[in-house]
């Protein structure tokens, strides 16, 4: 789709769930009626002031919103270029942006009288957020998590169990987020009567990409207001990390039609975006295909078989990306880049040392790109990155990568 056909970058999706050629509803017939029912319920909720009143109350008093917009003085001095701000979504209850969306979906599940909630999780942050909100509302919670991720994100597995969720390790495939999503869909198709599938990112069949984006847009809306208060204007550049792309969509969406704002999405480059496919950069290293209910950019071989991605960050370890990102990529509105594991690790340490913030590995990718562009920009240029999660869950992975001995006995 070319730019001159558009009045706005915020009108999608259309009634068939498309953002340009991307998105759609590629699901089995068994799930189709459920997806239509969900769409109807969301359309009703969207214009119901009581729904948003309840969301606002929970966001404020349960999650702790608005999250601060923080000026990173020492990082700014370190790179001696643009002014660097962080949207502090890692300060949310449960430690990441994921809960913004989970609250919305669980309130929908309650409206639909569904008593059993299923979710997929990669890094475990979406699983923890879902388990948390289910505990609060007394709902049964089942979380599918790749066996490989269960191993590398052990603290989050324990958290989910403490919160009363059942965690099912998924052994099909390589045991990461993609495989967890397959098994969650298999659960949903089996338990259609009582089960609500709470998807953690802006992917999946329509209406999920739209719905999750809308719930996460609170990030960008707050950023707009806070930046106006602190700087009297909008930021010049936005940067966010992308696995499926929900924290990025949430930050970007309210700024899409402000064309003065440059927007950058950072994919996981793993060991480097090359022919060996040891990365998760779907836009940089993939091509369009159909998986998990939507058409989007996917890592795949010549036969259309889905490839396993690779990233040190379990939350970015997904071979696809939300369809709206695919469209923003093709329309040129958002620029997508990639950052390697090594670069992310360096930024992880820098953030700890200079700002006293232990970041998750996911936003460490965003920070690494900020570190690449900030030195070349003038001091009145404002960059805002999304600090979408805290790094407590990642300390074991990072310790291993840095050859740090965790045995203090």
């Amino acid at each position: 789709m070319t730019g001159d056909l558009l009045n706005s970058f915020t009108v999608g999706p259309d009634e068939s769930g498309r953002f340009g050629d991307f998105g759609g509803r590629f699901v089995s017939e068994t799930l189709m009626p459920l997806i239509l029912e969900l769409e109807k319920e969301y359309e009703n909720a969207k214009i119901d002031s009581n729904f948003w009143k309840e969301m606002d109350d929970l966001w404020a008093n349960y999650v702790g919103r608005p999250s601060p917009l923080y000026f990173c003085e020492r990082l700014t001095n370190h790179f001696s270029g643009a002014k660097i701000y962080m949207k502090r979504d890692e300060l949310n209850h449960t430690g990441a942006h994921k809960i913004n969306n989970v609250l919305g979906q669980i309130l929908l599940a309650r409206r639909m009288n569904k008593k059993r909630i299923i979710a997929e999780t990669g890094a475990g942050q979406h699983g923890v957020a879902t388990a948390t909100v289910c505990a609060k509302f007394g709902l049964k919670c089942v979380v599918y998590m790749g066996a490989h991720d269960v191993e590398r994100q052990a603290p989050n597995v324990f958290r989910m169990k403490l919160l009363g969720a059942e965690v099912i390790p998924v052994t099909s495939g390589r045991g990461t987020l993609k495989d967890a999503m397959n098994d969650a869909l298999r659960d949903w198709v089996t338990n259609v009567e009582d089960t609500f599938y709470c998807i953690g990112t802006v992917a999946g069949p329509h209406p999920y990409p739209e719905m999750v984006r809308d719930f996460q847009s609170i990030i960008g809306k707050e950023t707009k207001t806070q930046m106006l208060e602190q700087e009297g204007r909008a930021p010049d550049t936005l940067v966010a990390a992308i696995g499926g792309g929900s924290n990025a969509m949430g930050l970007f969406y309210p700024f899409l039609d402000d064309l003065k704002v440059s927007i950058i999405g950072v994919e996981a480059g793993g060991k480097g975006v090359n022919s060996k496919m040891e990365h998760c950069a779907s836009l940089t290293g993939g091509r369009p295909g159909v998986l998990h209910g939507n058409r989007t950019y996917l890592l795949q071989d010549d036969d259309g078989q889905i490839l396993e991605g690779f990233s040190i960050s379990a939350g970015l370890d997904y071979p696809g990306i939300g369809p709206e990102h695919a469209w923003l990529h093709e329309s040129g509105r958002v620029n997508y880049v990639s950052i390697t594991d090594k670069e992310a690790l360096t930024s992880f340490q820098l953030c700890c040392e200079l700002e006293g913030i232990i970041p998750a590995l996911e936003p460490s990718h965003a920070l690494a790109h900020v570190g690449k562009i900030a030195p070349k920009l003038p001091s009145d240029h404002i960059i805002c990155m999304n600090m979408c999660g805290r790094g407590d869950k990642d300390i074991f992975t990072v310790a291993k990568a840095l050859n740090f001995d965790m045995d203090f006995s």
Partner: protein
Amino acid sequence: MARIDDTFSALRANRKKAFVAYIMAGDPDYNESKELLMGLPEAGVDIIELGLPFTDPMADGPTIQLAGQRALNSGQNLEKTLQMVQDFRSKNNVTPIIIMGYYNPIYSYGVDKFLSKAKLVGVDGLIIVDLPPEEDSELCIPAKNIGLNFIRLATPTTDENRLPAVLKNTSGFVYYVSITGITGVANASSANVSPEISRIKKETDLPVVVGFGIKTPEAALEMAKVADGVVVGSAIVEKIAQGESNKSVLAFVKSLAEGVHDA
């Protein structure tokens, strides 16, 4: 083109029900799988569903998932699956073959290129699990235009409002999914399925074939009493997983076919 219609006409004339067998193309490898495919008609199979392997088969249980992985590991792909149909057609020009799988390998290959090649090698129909009526313009309509049957799944969640849309562009037969769930896990009940088939039959003249959760000759017989045909997949594939010889797999297939044809 008319192989599926002709098959049902012939069965009806003999007052018999259709036995539809599913195997995964390339499982455990091309040659074994081709030999099994060639043997299916003589074992009593009326219609063949040939699985197109995919890494992420979201509607399938562990049995079919593993079969797909075995096939992919042995080097199977879309091109070789079409080759297998061509090999089959050089010996058999009667038994219908339906390609069953997921959309991405076809989309990746190119829809038009796939359809013309499929038509050329003698494919009769397609069952693509992740293409509901809402996405008909992707493959269903182009398939229909080129003369391939697009066989739609109807499920327990397909209500009165949706049924006309589900039946609209379906041809060949309607595949009724007996359970909510994935292949090869739960057991289907003919008592539950019977009223559903009557419901569908009120809306269409097409044959209604039942699949998912049918594992034994006895279960196939019971289901065949209430439907126009029965599909067995995972139970056959499970024999291949256990390393049974093609001869032994075909003996099992024959027992299933006799169950269905006795109904």
